[in-house]
């Protein structure tokens, strides 16, 4: 097996809260292999966005602390001075965010944005950067790119804008693309196009992709490996096939059960997971999912570890040793 591209170990992200620190991410570990697509799934508040933003120093809150280890191509990102981290952001690790409507500065043209991305990391002329921008726009499937390069973000539709954002993210051929809810703000047909585009670009640009989403459909379509998060921790991890066909954790089973199936039994109501996601300040000491879990038992007052061989899960039901 080759070296992992990106290896996160025991990541903790905490914010200063009204009553002491609040842990948004609590001991998260995962790896991304070169060329792999990792899907990170979880409800809102499960810590999936915060974990990736924390790694890249994008959390500007003074009360936030990020600890743990994140090795990217042999370099440690956590604790790296901001100047050095800046050379990683955009160049080695690029990000695409949820809402393409607001993620581009409204007063500049699409071409300007892409050129800024290129010129931030490479010393090339404005003209050459513009030329590259046109090529990139053509590559992400924007019609008439030589003219559209001078259009403003508001002149693009949502899907086109997300294509432009992806073109910008891929401008420096990053080794890792982190896409945070890249399709959530788009309609369904556009979603599929954007996912196809990302998979195609993975081939041409040789990037690994980390997709953060709450949408199981997106994950099943695009991911090689899946990481399920709940309450700031990973509760299950495995290949896409393993997680979707033999889910181990009750939370994953709940998520999958709440997806309607074509050709399945006609349901009066979709099954749901009872309760609501817990606030990170109110987590119990044991398993965070226990208050909503139908299969909880005495052992659940203790925190289960993420264990298993390849297909991991953090649940006492699947743990090799259950505490007495």
């Amino acid at each position: 097996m080759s070296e992992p591209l990106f290896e996160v170990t025991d990541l903790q992200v905490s914010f200063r809260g009204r009553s002491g620190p609040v842990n948004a991410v609590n001991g998260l570990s995962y790896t991304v292999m070169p060329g792999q697509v990792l899907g990170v799934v979880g409800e809102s508040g499960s810590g999936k966005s915060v974990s990736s933003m924390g790694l890249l120093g994008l959390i500007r809150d003074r009360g936030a602390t990020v600890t743990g280890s994140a090795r990217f191509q042999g370099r440690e990102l956590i604790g790296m001075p901001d100047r050095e981290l800046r050379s990683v952001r955009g160049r080695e690790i690029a990000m695409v965010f949820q809402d393409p409507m607001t993620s581009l500065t409204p007063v500049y043209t699409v071409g300007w944005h892409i050129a800024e991305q290129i010129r931030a990391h490479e010393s090339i002329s404005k003209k050459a950067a513009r030329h590259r921008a046109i090529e990139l726009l053509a590559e992400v499937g924007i019609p008439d790119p030589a003219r559209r390069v001078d259009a403003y973000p508001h002149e693009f539709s949502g899907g086109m804008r997300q294509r432009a954002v992806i073109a910008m993210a891929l401008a420096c051929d990053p080794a890792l693309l982190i896409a945070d809810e890249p399709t959530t703000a788009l309609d369904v047909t556009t979603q599929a196009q954007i996912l196809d585009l990302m998979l195609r670009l993975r081939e041409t640009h040789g990037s690994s992709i980390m997709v953060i989403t709450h949408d199981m459909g997106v994950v099943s379509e695009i991911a090689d490996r899946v990481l399920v998060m709940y309450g700031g921790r990973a509760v299950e991890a495995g290949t896409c096939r393993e997680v979707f066909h033999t889910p181990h954790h009750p939370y994953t089973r709940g998520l999958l059960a709440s997806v309607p199936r074509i050709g399945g039994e006609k349901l009066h109501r979709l099954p749901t997971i009872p309760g609501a996601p817990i606030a990170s300040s109110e987590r119990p000491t044991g398993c965070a999912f226990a208050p909503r879990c139908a299969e909880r038992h005495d052992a659940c007052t203790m925190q289960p570890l993420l264990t298993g061989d390849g297909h991991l899960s953090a649940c006492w039901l699947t743990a090799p040793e259950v505490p007495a």
Partner: protein
Amino acid sequence: MLGYTIRRIGAALFVLWAISVLVFLIFFATPGVDPAARIAGRNADPATLEQVRRSFGFDAPITTQYLKMMNHLFLERDLTSFVNRGSRVVPQITDALPATLSLVIGAAVIWMAVGIAMGTAAAAWRGKAADPVITLLGILGVSMPVYWLGEVINLFTQSRMHETVFRWVPPLGYVAPTENPWQWFLHLIFPWLSLAVLYAGIYARLLRGELIGALREDYVRTARAKGISERRILVRHALRCSLIPVVSLFGLDFGALVGGAGLLTEVVFGIPGIGHLTYNALQNLDLPVIMGTVMYAAFFVVLANAAVDLFYARLDPRVRHV
């Protein structure tokens, strides 16, 4: 675009007309107001009053009086003062314009530079000690009225410390730049500063608020993810977007000031500008001059509004194609 421009000009003309009617009615047709009585002086006998009324045309119907005055002001441009008969209103205004423009443009350069620098610094250092200090300085500037600040400055530069530190300060007044540019500069430096202090404070506060909002926007997060420097994020992304409301406010303030809103500064520093002219006319209740200066001021405010609308489209591409 053409239709829009025509509509815009039509609206502007309507506003100017409405202002002229309003001002005319306030001074000529408010119950209890009798311009003839003011001109004739206190305790004038009825015969004198009647004579004044006839010679100034106050016996004609109000609409005739209005049309006559507008005709003299805009078409013939020979409207004369009631107080100094024979002195024409329009040349008085055009003569006063260079002094006002000198004062306002100079002050505007200072307050925009200082206001933008202070607002940006306060937003960039938000949460650190410098931010409340800058904010406090801004409030201090806003809280000092020009007539007070100007008088204090005059007290020190013209009298108390004139023999020592401020020996170089010329007496109050105005020198045309065509006559002596250096003296022009020296005469205006304190008027500029005292007018700019007020506006710099307002603009710094406005810009700080806008910038702090902009720094929370998604596009700033995207810019940060691109790996560009914090300074570039602040200036090219956040500041560029925050300047849009600042520039539109600037247009309105600038128009009002050229229109004579710098009256207090002009009076305190003895600058013979439009504000000073208005002030004297109000003191003597010289109705034609008041009419002339008010119409002139309204014209500049309306012009500034239109200029802001057009310039706004240059600043914000989102409003260009509507």
